[in-house]
């Protein structure tokens, strides 16, 4: 088992190299050079050239790519932002907690709502407790989070003045982003939990548990749910990774200084080191989460553990 996970951990390295390559060359395709982006298109050409030289942008593409890789791999140096000239890593370090807070609270919110209701609607299949949540979740899954965010911003911030509409000063600042981002995910978790639970409660071991006289609540919430949660965990883990960097639209709507909004502003001004650094770190965390999900799987399910030890 350790061998398997060590192998998986090693696999992250080529993936990150690949991500670096892909992003670097996509950025290379973007028109313009950082000198022009920073000084403006109408700027003095010699000043633009000088700036590009200072930034090292006048060197050939491959040379830039490999020297970037060399610095990252051997010196753990992610370079400096083209715009601010400050180390990229400092900017990213400040934003990671924000992104993690947003992603984690969103997942927590979605799970707290989605999983129990999902279990309930599976247990009471075809009753009102099933149909009403199912219909609502269908609507929720079709809602763009940023639209929900705009509507909630209008009502709760502009109209009623109950909640702040942007920034990250306090926990109240996170309520609107988390709820608007989380409701579609809650709907997804509800649907996953429901269908997985429906399958589980028809299994033999659940019948056995009932037959030996365990009370119904224990059977459902302990015996069945433990197994039914496996596919839900996979989806949730993936969602957490996606939310870390993919909450760009919500971050931009609520002015949240997270990784996603850093990447989008940096893409727009062709700040290559910042985009590279942020994307690589995101991809690294994402790969770790997927590995963690696998570990969790093995921890809960002895059958999977046995498969890995082979």
């Amino acid at each position, binding site marked *: 088992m350790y061998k398997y996970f060590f192998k998986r951990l090693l*696999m992250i390295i*080529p*993936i*990150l190299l*690949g*991500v670096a390559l*892909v*992003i670097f060359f*996509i*950025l290379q*395709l*973007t*028109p313009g050079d950082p000198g022009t982006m920073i000084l403006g298109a109408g700027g003095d050409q010699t000043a633009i050239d000088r700036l590009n030289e200072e930034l090292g942008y006048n060197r050939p593409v491959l040379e830039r790519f490999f020297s970037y890789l060399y610095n990252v791999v051997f010196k753990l140096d992610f370079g400096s932002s083209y715009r601010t000239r400050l180390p990229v890593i400092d900017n990213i370090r400040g934003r990671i907690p924000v992104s993690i807070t947003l992603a984690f609270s969103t997942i927590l919110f979605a799970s707290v709502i989605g999983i129990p209701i999902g279990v309930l609607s599976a247990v009471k299949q075809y009753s009102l407790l099933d149909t009403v949540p199912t219909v609502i979740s*269908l*609507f929720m*899954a*079709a*809602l*763009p989070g*940023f*639209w929900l965010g*705009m*509507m909630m*911003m*209008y009502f709760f911030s*502009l109209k009623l003045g109950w909640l702040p509409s942007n920034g990250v000063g306090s926990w109240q600042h996170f309520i609107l982003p988390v709820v608007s981002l989380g409701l579609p995910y809650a709907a997804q978790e509800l649907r996953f939990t*429901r*269908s997985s639970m*429906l399958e589980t409660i028809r299994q033999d071991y659940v019948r056995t548990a009932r037959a030996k006289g365990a009370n119904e609540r224990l059977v459902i919430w302990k015996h069945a749910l433990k197994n039914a949660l496996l596919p839900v965990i996979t989806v949730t883990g993936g969602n957490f*990774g*996606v939310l*870390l*960097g*993919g909450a*760009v*639209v919500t971050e*931009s*709507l609520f002015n949240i200084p997270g990784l*996603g909004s850093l*990447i*989008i502003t940096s*893409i*727009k001004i062709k700040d290559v080191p910042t*985009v590279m650094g942020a*994307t690589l770190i*995101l*991809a690294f965390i*994402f*790969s770790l989460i997927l590995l963690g999900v696998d570990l969790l799987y093995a921890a809960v399910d002895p059958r999977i553990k046995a498969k890995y030890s082979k």
Partner: protein
Amino acid sequence: MNDTIQFKRQGKLKEIWRRLKKSKTAMFGLVVLSIFIFSAVFAEFITPYNTAIKQNIRQRMQGPSTDHWFGTDGFGRDVFARVLHGSRRSLSIGFLATLASLSVGLLFGAAVGYYGGKFDAIVMRFMDILSAIPATLMALAIVAALGSNMTNLIIAIAIARIPAFVRIIRAAILGVVDLEYIEAAKAGGAGDLRIIIKHILPNIIGTLIVQTTMTTAQLIMRSASLSFLGLGIQAPEPEWGSLLSEAREFLRPAPYLMVFPGLAIVLSTLSLNLLGDGLRDALDPRLKS
């Protein structure tokens, strides 16, 4: 012989349609979707494109009325016309991007699923790399690289979706490739291409259809969010995401502006999801939950 096959196929389609018709939600989805597609196709006859982009400062920010069903925006343009003509772009971006990523995904997914081995390993590692980058960010970077217009938006969204399709199609093909009837076809001397097209694809067509409807819904939303960020369709061309982006500027004086483009996104994605759900049940009753 050909006649019987034709007959059988028709029978199967009829059977699927019969099962689909039984699902009220799927029918609701189909009707709503048809209305969307119909009005997008005939948008020009319903209200000319000119009304969607002609500015009229004297009539700016008027709430919904009989003259302007959805009101007018910050430049006095008719919001109904803008949502209607926006649907042409939003829907075609969703459908075309789905078709593009499906075609590429089918090509690679079928090839790696069928041949396996080193080729499979190489392609799948490359897909691992692409999936380690959040799809929205990937699409964003590609649009930034290519420049913001409709074609590039479609390309960007489609590329970001390819890994998911390759995975799904590969898995579906792996599920049938070892079955006995494939072996029988091989023993009968059928070539690889013939086996893939004649014997494997018909078996996974259900998965493909369901994935196509669901993916279209997702991609409509993704294109809207990219346009919302200012990286998709550019003003004054209407698209649902860019309409919402404009509405954001007028959130306080004209809150109704955000309602209709948002509703259009919700209704179209909802109807696609409902139809997809219904199709899944109709195509494979065993999966019905």
